[in-house]
């Protein structure tokens, strides 16, 4: 097991297109790090550079204290689980899992012991003699993981391993992956575009966008303290609401955010100093749907009531998502399922502004 380090890593393709623009990332031993971001953000390229499947155009990659820029994949002591499993179709499950060990000339009894052990962990013992064709998607994914586990490598690399599974199996396999990591404790780098996967699996999440790292942090940190508008919008489901606003003087000498002519929200007292220097400037207010809910008379005294016309109602059982438009900007609120909300009707809402974020419109930086 080992730590992984990316230092000023660049990937430039022919024609000058930069997929990764000089990223720095330190991954500790035993850590489970998830690279997350939209398609084309450079997360898979970064993973493939760590694996040695893509050449590095600039910078350094270190694995276990050694620089591996020019080390071929087979000598990096890593194992990778691919999106399409990449199982050898002509080999049995046992042979698929044993292949790496056979190439490394492990003794036969040691190979059998390791494969049996991995198969037991992954609950695929009855499948060992089958060919990949005779396996379901979930079973294939387990075999792919087994192939990685038996090698006992320094680092596990996962490239969107659950993308080809249906929603139910994905949740199940997510738990399996977490369990496996808790058992073997191997340093893991996991790539996904699914922020729920990222949040549930990671010790730390790396949010990438346009070839750069937007923010690195624990799932909670990213959720509560996003550094940029991109991270704020990417992490959390449904996505955070963004409303243009102006910072101005409020009542009792405090600050307020003017969203529309009719909607002005008071800035919480503990944020007055932080937002004071932005007075008079156009900013972007960010508030998550879960912090925007139906107004109650018995609510906290500083919660401002805002009446908005309901556009769409999405009942989801334990909660109901209600969509509105505020000056043309789409807004989503999460309300109690017992709340009566009908499209076209006015619904009184309020926001927990202690959870709000204020961003610069030009840089997207959260202030």
């Amino acid at each position, binding site marked *: 097991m080992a730590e992984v380090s990316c230092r000023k890593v660049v990937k430039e393709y022919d024609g000058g297109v930069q997929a990764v623009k000089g990223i720095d990332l330190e991954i500790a031993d035993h850590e489970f790090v998830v690279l997350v971001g939209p398609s084309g953000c450079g997360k898979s390229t970064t993973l493939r550079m760590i*694996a*040695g*499947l893509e050449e590095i155009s600039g910078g350094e990659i270190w694995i276990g204290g050694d620089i591996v820029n020019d080390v*071929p*994949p*087979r000598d990096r002591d*890593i*194992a*990778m689980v*691919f999106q*399409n499993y*990449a*199982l*050898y*179709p*002509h080999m049995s499950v046992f042979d698929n899992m044993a*292949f*790496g060990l056979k*190439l*490394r000339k492990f003794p036969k009894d040691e190979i059998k012991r390791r494969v049996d052990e991995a198969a037991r962990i992954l609950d695929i013992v009855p499948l060992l003699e089958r*060919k*990949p*064709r005779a396996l379901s998607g979930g079973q294939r994914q387990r075999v792919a993981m087994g*192939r990685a586990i038996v*090698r006992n490598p320094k680092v596990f690399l996962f490239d969107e391993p659950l993308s080809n599974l249906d929603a139910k199996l994905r949740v199940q396999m997510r738990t399996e992956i977490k369990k496996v990591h808790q058992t073997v404790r191997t340093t893991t780098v996991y790539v996904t575009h699914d922020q729920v996967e990222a949040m549930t699996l990671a010790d730390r999440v790396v949010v990438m966008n346009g070839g750069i790292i937007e923010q690195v942090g624990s799932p909670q940190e990213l959720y509560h303290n996003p550094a940029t508008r991109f991270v704020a919008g990417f992490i959390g489901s449904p996505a955070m609401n963004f409303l243009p606003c102006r910072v101005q003087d409020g009542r009792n000498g405090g600050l307020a955010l003017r969203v529309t002519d009719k909607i002005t929200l008071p800035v919480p007292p503990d944020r007055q100093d932080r937002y004071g220097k932005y007075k008079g400037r156009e900013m972007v207010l960010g508030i998550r749907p879960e912090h925007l809910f139906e107004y109650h008379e018995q609510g906290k005294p500083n919660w401002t009531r805002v009446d908005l016309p309901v556009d769409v109602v999405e009942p989801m059982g334990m909660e109901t998502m209600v969509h509105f438009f505020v000056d043309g900007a789409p807004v989503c609120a999460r309300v109690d399922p017992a709340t009566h909300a009908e499209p076209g009707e006015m619904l009184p809402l309020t926001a927990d502004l202690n959870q709000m974020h204020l961003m610069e419109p030009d840089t997207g930086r959260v202030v």
Partner: protein
Amino acid sequence: MADGTSVPVGVMQASRPAAARRSSMRRFAGRRSTMGFLLALPLILLVAGFVIYPAFYAIYLSMLNKKMTSFVGLGNFAFLLKRNTFQLVIFQSCLFAITAVVMKALLGFILAHLMHNIPGKNQRIWRGLLLVPWVIPLALSTLTWWWMFDPSYSAFNWILNQFGFANVPWLGVGWIARFCTIAVNVWYGTPFFMIMYLAALKSVPEQLYEAAAIDGANAVQKLFFVTLPMMRNIIAITVLFSLITTFADFDIVRILTAGGPQDMTHVFATYAFQVGIQSGDIPLGASVSLFMFPILAIAAFFVLRGVTRRTKEIAT
């Protein structure tokens, strides 16, 4: 019955089965299987007329005496097996076909790999150039080769002379002539293998190579553990196909050596032509041409069975 629309009982009885027959005919014609059969019928008739009938007629001919007046059973085959010339023809045909197919498969595989690693546009150019031997009519290209092997005007001999070597009678000495016929067949057939293997190489998922690289495989191990197993079906089918066509090869030997010198380059087809057409013993010629049929048919059966099994095995 009194309204004038009634039908006599006898007429009704006769028209009901006719209507039922029409309806069942309509049902029969409307079935998918019937429609499929009708659409395939022209091809079935073509195959029956140009393949099945000649094949059975050849079998029938091979069992007649020289004058084609009496049935001799397998007598022609027994007669052929006793003749030294025919034993030589069997040896040469096997040598010609097996050596040529192995060489074509090997060169085709190497060329396909080289081609596979040439980037985009250049690959298309090279692919087009390397397909030229396969595209030129064989009789025409073999005539060109015949010129190049000519003892007096040979391009090869001219090159040898430039380096101070003596002339080589390319088509005049047994083993050299055998080598020449095989070489021309390899030259002609390699592009077919190359294009088939190139297609097979392109169909191997790149992720398998990446997985093998991470598993610790070097280039040779990737070839043996990923490429070859994934290409086994294409290799089997191309080798089988080529073996059949090479065993049946006529043009190259006929044009280059006409079976000589001293029958040392005859293959089944040229010998069958000599015996059947030139010497007028059509039943014996038919026997020669049919000699390899059972062996190749059994080989084809096992190869195709293996292909079907592996296809099921690796299909996702």
